[in-house]
């Protein structure tokens, strides 16, 4: 049994929150460069160049890439031989979020209740998903999930008769309805299968795969590439000003499902794709 103290968890989360917001991951920066080579629209090209500059400026000035510094969505892979000491795991994660957002000059965007809408002031609580895994390490993955794009995320329960074609149409439909509102170029996280909530969680988790890397499942990889090509033929373009770069990537995760069901959840993510992870 390996012990991990809550203070190490809080410190790690604090750092991940700040760095995710100031410093876009290299996979995103490469996506801008790739798109700058292929984008035909002058307005689209200009947007991509400004976003690249924005990433550079955020990094050097240590200010957030986007003022919406997101809802912290945290996936924890907890090794079953780990014993968390000194307090609760979730309290530690939230303490890290609170410190990171306050000390990092990040925006507090969370309200304590969907109805009274009073801001909690420190961007807590996080949305936390925990998986138990073999081993004695703890992997913490943090995403600062923007609200504008999240609001365009969608779920649909298709039927087995709708099949693969139905899934494809639905995913393209999600790109179309996200349109300019979700700050394209977009990244789509797609969860297919499982139950209602399983598909939704998979759609978030799918976003953590490195952008531009192949799906480990060759059949899904072919599907992703086909869908990305189609999404980029829609013409929405960077910021919706028209162009070829509507999406940077479509990442799919699947799970077995019931004989009656074909659930499909699509998390819409924007170009402010702020994700970081650490293994303790």
């Amino acid at each position: 049994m390996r012990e991990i103290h809550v203070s190490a968890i809080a410190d790690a989360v604090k750092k991940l929150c700040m760095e995710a917001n100031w410093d876009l991951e290299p996979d995103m920066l490469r996506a801008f460069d790739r798109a700058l080579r292929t984008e035909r629209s002058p307005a689209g090209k200009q947007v991509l160049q400004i976003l690249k500059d924005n990433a550079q400026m955020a990094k050097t000035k240590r200010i957030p890439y986007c003022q919406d510094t997101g809802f912290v969505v945290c996936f924890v892979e907890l090794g079953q031989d780990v014993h968390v000491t000194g307090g609760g795991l979730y309290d530690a994660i939230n303490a890290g979020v609170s410190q990171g957002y306050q000390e990092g000059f990040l925006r507090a965007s969370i309200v304590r209740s969907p109805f009274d809408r009073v801001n909690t002031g420190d961007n807590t609580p996080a949305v936390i998903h925990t998986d138990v895994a073999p081993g004695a390490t703890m992997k913490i993955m943090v995403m600062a999930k923007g609200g504008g794009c999240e609001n365009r995320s969608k779920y649909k329960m298709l039927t087995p008769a709708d099949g693969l074609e139905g899934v494809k149409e639905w995913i393209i439909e999600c790109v179309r309805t996200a349109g300019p509102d979700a700050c394209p170029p977009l990244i789509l996280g797609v969860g297919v299968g499982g139950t209602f909530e399983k598909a939704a969680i998979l759609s978030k988790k799918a976003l953590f795969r490195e952008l531009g890397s192949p799906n480990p499942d060759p059949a899904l990889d072919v599907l992703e590439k086909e869908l990305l090509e189609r999404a980029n033929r829609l013409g929405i373009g960077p910021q919706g000003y028209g162009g070829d770069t509507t999406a940077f990537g479509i990442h799919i995760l699947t799970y077995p499902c019931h004989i009656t069901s074909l659930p499909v959840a699509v998390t819409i993510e924007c170009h402010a794709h702020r994700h970081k992870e650490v293994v303790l």
Partner: protein
Amino acid sequence: MIRTAPDGIKEVTPPLSDADIEALKAGDRVRITGVVYTARDAAHGRLFPLIEKGQPLPIDVRGQIIYYTGPSPARPGDIVGSIGPTTGGRMDKFTPALLKLGLKATMGKGARSRLVRDALKQCKAVYFGAIGGAGAVLSRFVKTVEIVAYEDLGTEAIRRLEVENFPAMVINDCYGGDLYEDGMKAYAREDTAPSQ
């Protein structure tokens, strides 16, 4: 006032008149210099009941621009943190009433409803798009920030900004023009009609 600069970009300085608005077309690049007010969901939620009751608003919107944004906190020594636009569509419910009071422009990102686009035509107003997610770069164009109402709303308070050469695009003009529709049509390489 609107002036076309030698580089072809339209320089916009509020307060704006009907004639100024008529000079702006969907797809125009603009630079805004002067006062811009920030307001987003929560501030609109407070302004709206005042308008319904015919009571005065904390800001005089006539001829002005409202920028939909909630900035991140400024680092010590900085004027403001990141300050990019939020989705305009969430303010659709409130916008026609503000336009009737003489507001001349709103600025955000994302599509507006049919009702808002009609109100832009009727009231002679425009919707500007700023680059969503470029909040760090956009902070450079903000010269002063002052909270003028609803300080308790934090990032959602109404702020009076002085901006200089703030870059934006005309998304919706007063003639029914829509950059999002035109842009998509120009670059679509497949039938983009919704599937159902």
